[in-house]
């Protein structure tokens, strides 16, 4: 008995301290962040300028762009691979491995002139045959590449000469260049693929500025400068990628650890990062949208008025302020402000509880209740509780159910849900934000939404090469989607990257990738 009591004493003392710490929380947290800032290294003290450490939000599962399904993979690919075409800050297509290209008038034939004197990191020369090999590899159903659905409109690939390749499409497909600016356009070494087979994902070889050295699972991924790189020779010799799934840990390691730049910071940490004296923060709007997916085939959301009631009852500005500390942009359509397809005349309306009540009454339903499925993160929980509370004022009874993210995607794909908090990371071309989501039987249309007019407009928009005409079509789509409300657009995420003050050369492109080629220390 005595010994137990003695053993308890330290706990009581700890509890007391915890209590005092909590009472003085405000001041101690402020004190904490400023001392954080001071303890971090400043620009002038850096001695080793040959190594840069990048903090990622997850460990990249695998390094073969043809097989990749995780967004975080792409961060590492920026070092190892080049794409045929790249995008710049303003989402214009710029040359990378292709120096120029021509699109035929019918929009079905793309001719690329390829860069000369490019070597893969294993010494294999890059040429038209290599490009052909890459596309044929991704098109081979036996590989099971997730890229297949992005490029399955390719009919035929012709090698015109060593440095010219012609790709024939089955039908005009306006987003084709945007697809080539992502993983489908990343060229891997044919020699290495033939040699490594499936193991290529662990021994990747590309044409990028850095070559792969090693990857410890859930640990360091190291790449080293490729001395025969065709472009500007990188200033930094070694880049190390480290995974930090927890946002607070990631930022703390940036402020006072050896991390130099992180691929994302939590919205709630923006202020902390901004106030840290040794950091700078860069932000850009990204390409995606976030909101609530409604199953239009089940009650109560098979009723359009109910969907409309939800749509106008939610105070998007309050959500942006409370959950995201105004780090996001309230949304009304699938096209964020970075996109030329963004409908500027579709303003974010004020939440209108009275009108929502009216709509709910017109729907003929009473005691409307539904389950909102979310993934179990604190931020999602907070957002869901705001939605729950806002809809309660209208008369909805919302039950929140937390489901692991993979399961959530599975359940929505199977139609086993009423409402679900699922968003989209977005694509450069507006087609990538709309076609698969909102056409009847679209591959991501888990709302089971079907509107023949939307189908027609989106089909027309993807086959036309005239941007002005496409913009008009997408504007109409946005309006119809707002009215039909199969998906409640809540916000456009923004991307925040924080880095040490002496990290230079970072260009914030809306595809949120860290292009390592031009990074250097002051």
């Amino acid at each position, binding site marked *: 008995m005595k010994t137990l*009591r003695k053993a308890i004493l330290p706990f009581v003392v700890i*509890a007391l301290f915890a209590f005092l710490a*909590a009472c003085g929380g405000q001041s101690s947290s402020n004190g904490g962040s400023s001392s954080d800032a001071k303890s971090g290294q400043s620009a002038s003290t850096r001695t080793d300028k040959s190594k840069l450490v990048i903090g990622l939000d997850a460990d990249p599962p695998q390094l073969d762009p043809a097989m990749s399904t995780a967004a975080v993979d792409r961060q590492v690919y920026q070092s190892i691979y080049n794409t045929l075409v790249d995008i710049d800050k303003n989402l214009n297509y710029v040359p990378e491995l292709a120096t120029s290209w021509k699109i035929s008038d019918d929009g079905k034939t793309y001719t690329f002139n390829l860069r000369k004197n490019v070597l893969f990191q294993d010494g294999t020369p890059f040429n038209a045959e290599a490009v052909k090999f890459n596309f044929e590899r991704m098109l081979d159903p036996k590989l099971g590449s997730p890229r297949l659905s992005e490029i399955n409109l390719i009919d035929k690939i012709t090698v015109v000469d060593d440095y010219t390749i012609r790709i024939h499409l089955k039908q005009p497909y306006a987003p084709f260049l945007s697809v080539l600016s992502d993983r489908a356009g990343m060229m891997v070494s044919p020699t290495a693929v033939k040699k490594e087979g499936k193991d290529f994902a662990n021994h990747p070889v590309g044409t990028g500025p850095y070559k792969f050295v090693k990857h410890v699972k859930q640990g360091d991924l190291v790449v080293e400068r490729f001395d025969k790189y065709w472009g500007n020779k990188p200033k930094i010799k070694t880049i190390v990628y480290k995974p930090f799934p927890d946002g607070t840990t990631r930022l703390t390691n940036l402020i006072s650890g050896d991390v130099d730049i992180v691929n994302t910071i939590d919205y709630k940490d923006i202020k902390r990062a901004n106030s840290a004296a040794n950091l700078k923060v860069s932000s850009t709007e990204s390409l995606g949208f976030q909101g609530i997916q409604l199953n239009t085939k089940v009650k109560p959301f098979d009723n359009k008025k109910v969907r409309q009631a939800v749509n106008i009852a939610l105070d998007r500005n309050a959500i942006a302020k409370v959950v995201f500390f105004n780090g996001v942009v309230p949304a009304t359509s699938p096209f964020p402000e970075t996109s030329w397809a963004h409908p500027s005349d579709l303003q974010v309306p004020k939440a209108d509880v009275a009108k929502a009540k009216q709509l709910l009454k017109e729907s003929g339903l009473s005691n409307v209740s539904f389950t909102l499925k979310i993934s179990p993160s604190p931020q999602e929980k907070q957002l869901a509780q705001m939605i729950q509370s806002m809809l309660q004022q209208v008369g909805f009874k919302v039950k929140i159910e937390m489901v692991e993210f993979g399961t959530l995607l599975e359940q929505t794909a199977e139609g086993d849900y009423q409402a679900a908090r699922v968003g989209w990371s977005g694509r450069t071309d507006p087609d990538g934000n709309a076609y698969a989501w909102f056409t009847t039987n679209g591959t991501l249309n888990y709302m089971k939404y079907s509107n023949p007019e939307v189908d027609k407009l989106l089909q027309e928009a993807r086959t036309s090469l005239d941007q002005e005409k496409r913009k008009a079509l997408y504007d109409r789509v946005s309006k119809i989607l707002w009215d039909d409300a199969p998906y409640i657009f809540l916000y456009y995420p923004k991307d925040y990257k924080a880095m040490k003050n002496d990290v230079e050369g970072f260009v914030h492109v809306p595809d949120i990738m860290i292009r390592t080629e031009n990074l250097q220390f002051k």
Partner: protein
Amino acid sequence: MSQTNAQTAAPYPNRLESSPRLRSLKKALGRFFQNKLGVAGGLFLLILVILAIFAPWLAPYNPMKQDYMAILQGPSAKHWFGTDDLGRDVLSRIIYGARVSLKAGIISVAIALAIGVPIGLISGYFRGFWDEFIIMRITDAMLSFPSLVLALTLAAVFGAGLNNAMLAIGLVYTPHFIRLVRGQVLAQREREYVEAAIAAGISHWRIMLRHILPNAWAPIMVQATLSVAGAIISEASLSFLGLGTQPPTPSWGSMLSEGQGYITQAPWIAVFPGLFIFLAVMSINVFGDGVRDMLDPKLK
């Protein structure tokens, strides 16, 4: 249990003094009150029970009321424990959270008792193949799992929610009671009074319920009290991981998980529920120790 008996007994000392049974009860209570820590634990538990029962009157705010103008405010005269990321009053949520925690602790253990005691009793009394090779092996298998992992698995199978979480926790604690009761019964069964009862032709059921069980009751009560503490932690863990209480109902575990992201800028959101989990579990443990001292006849 015996504590409440004693309180009602106190006003009539003269009339009851003569009963030897009550005299030993009084002695036992005396032993309990000697254990200061146990008494302190009991008092804190009493406070929690009062908070839980009278939550609607005691809580200064509606625990679900969101105030977007007052998010992440530190402790102040208006909000003693500060406000959370949705502008809700943390103190009010803790008071309502006591309901969830106590309910989860008591009901889960009640489930474990309801299943575990009869099985342990029958298993220990009749012994044989079912006891040795079926029931004991199943309990061994269940006991070999870390209890939280098992609770997580069960809660995931049943689906998220407080009721399912309580059921899962109850099932996880059941084998502990089966083992304990069986051990007690095995020991009692060899006693002469049982032999005498059998010789007198009393039915097995009556022997089990009227003769053996009362003699095995003390360790079961102590184990039950301590298990309540474990069950409270389990519920908090499940809620922390999203499988327990569902939002917006406040529970200490889910408050802790909601607050973890703000631990640097608004520590009060996580620290206060953490403190209450700690204090509640601690007081149940020391209270349980007190009860054990009280029921232990060797400590005179």
